[in-house]
């Protein structure tokens, strides 16, 4: 199973975007969230714990998005040590999450989800 991982500086940002994409793409897409350490921020241990949790839930591949530069950098750092492959994507957070969830919900794979998230930088809302 391919899971999404959303990392934000404020825990409720990732949680709210998770709820949004669940509305749009359905509850079949598994979404983990991390961040908001000590109120505001991101750290390695919290991300790694959520990766383990996703892997315990059966994730064999993870597509990961971060809200800001530090989240993306820490995601890449944690991807190095993880025992499940992680696609760290530089994408607009909400739009990339929606795009990759839509791809996963319609049967796409991790690299297609990654491409869709990245391509969200080039799409306009209408």
């Amino acid at each position, binding site marked *: 199973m391919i899971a999404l991982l959303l990392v934000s500086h404020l825990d409720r940002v990732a949680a709210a975007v998770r709820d949004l994409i669940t509305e749009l793409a359905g509850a079949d897409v598994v979404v983990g969230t991390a961040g908001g350490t000590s109120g505001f921020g991101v750290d390695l241990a919290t991300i790694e714990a959520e990766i383990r949790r996703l892997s315990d839930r059966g994730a064999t591949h993870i597509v990961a998005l971060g809200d800001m530069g530090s989240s993306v950098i820490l995601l890449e750092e944690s991807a190095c040590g993880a025992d499940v492959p992680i696609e760290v994507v530089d994408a607009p957070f909400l739009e990339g999450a929606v795009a990759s969830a*839509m791809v996963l919900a319609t049967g796409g794979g991790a690299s297609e989800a990654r491409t869709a998230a990245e391509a969200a930088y080039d799409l306009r809302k209408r």
Partner: protein
Amino acid sequence: MTESDFVALWRAFYDKVTAKRDELNQLDAAIGDGDHGTNLARGLGRVVEELKPSGSLRASCRMVGMRLLSTVGGASGALWGSALVSASTVLPDEAQMNHETALAALSRGIDQMRARGKAEVGDKTMMDVWIPAVTALESGAPVGDVAAQAMSSAEATRPLQARRGRAAYLGSRSIGHVDPGSLSTALWWEALAEVVDS
């Protein structure tokens, strides 16, 4: 067209959308979030509940638009609502209008949809149906023919890759599915043809 035709048009459209609600939802599930039938049926349900001849096509059309704008209803509802409010401004404050005025209102409506949604023909949105349909009507085609053509235009969105709307996030994965908003737009033209023919 009289105001009672106008009321009948929305009633017929509502009936068609309700009958195809699941199909519209399924089409949307393939390339969107699966709510297009539900969205339209909910909005139109509110419309048919409230729409009564008021003596003014302008007021009625505006009411339909405002109702669609204020019933939670996705991108399609926002575009329909915006177009109808805009179209209402060229309608007479009377219970009757001629063919020319109806054409002017349609043209105003799709201009507004274009301005708001920024989609053109080929982007795999309902504009793929609206634009050629209004063009055909403007060049004198009978409404029944336009409605049949609208259904073909909707079907012709199948091989396209979406470039507007949330389906665009799917990239090439949007290919191979009919656009739900295009199908519902074709249903509107079918409803219009029925009301005008009868």
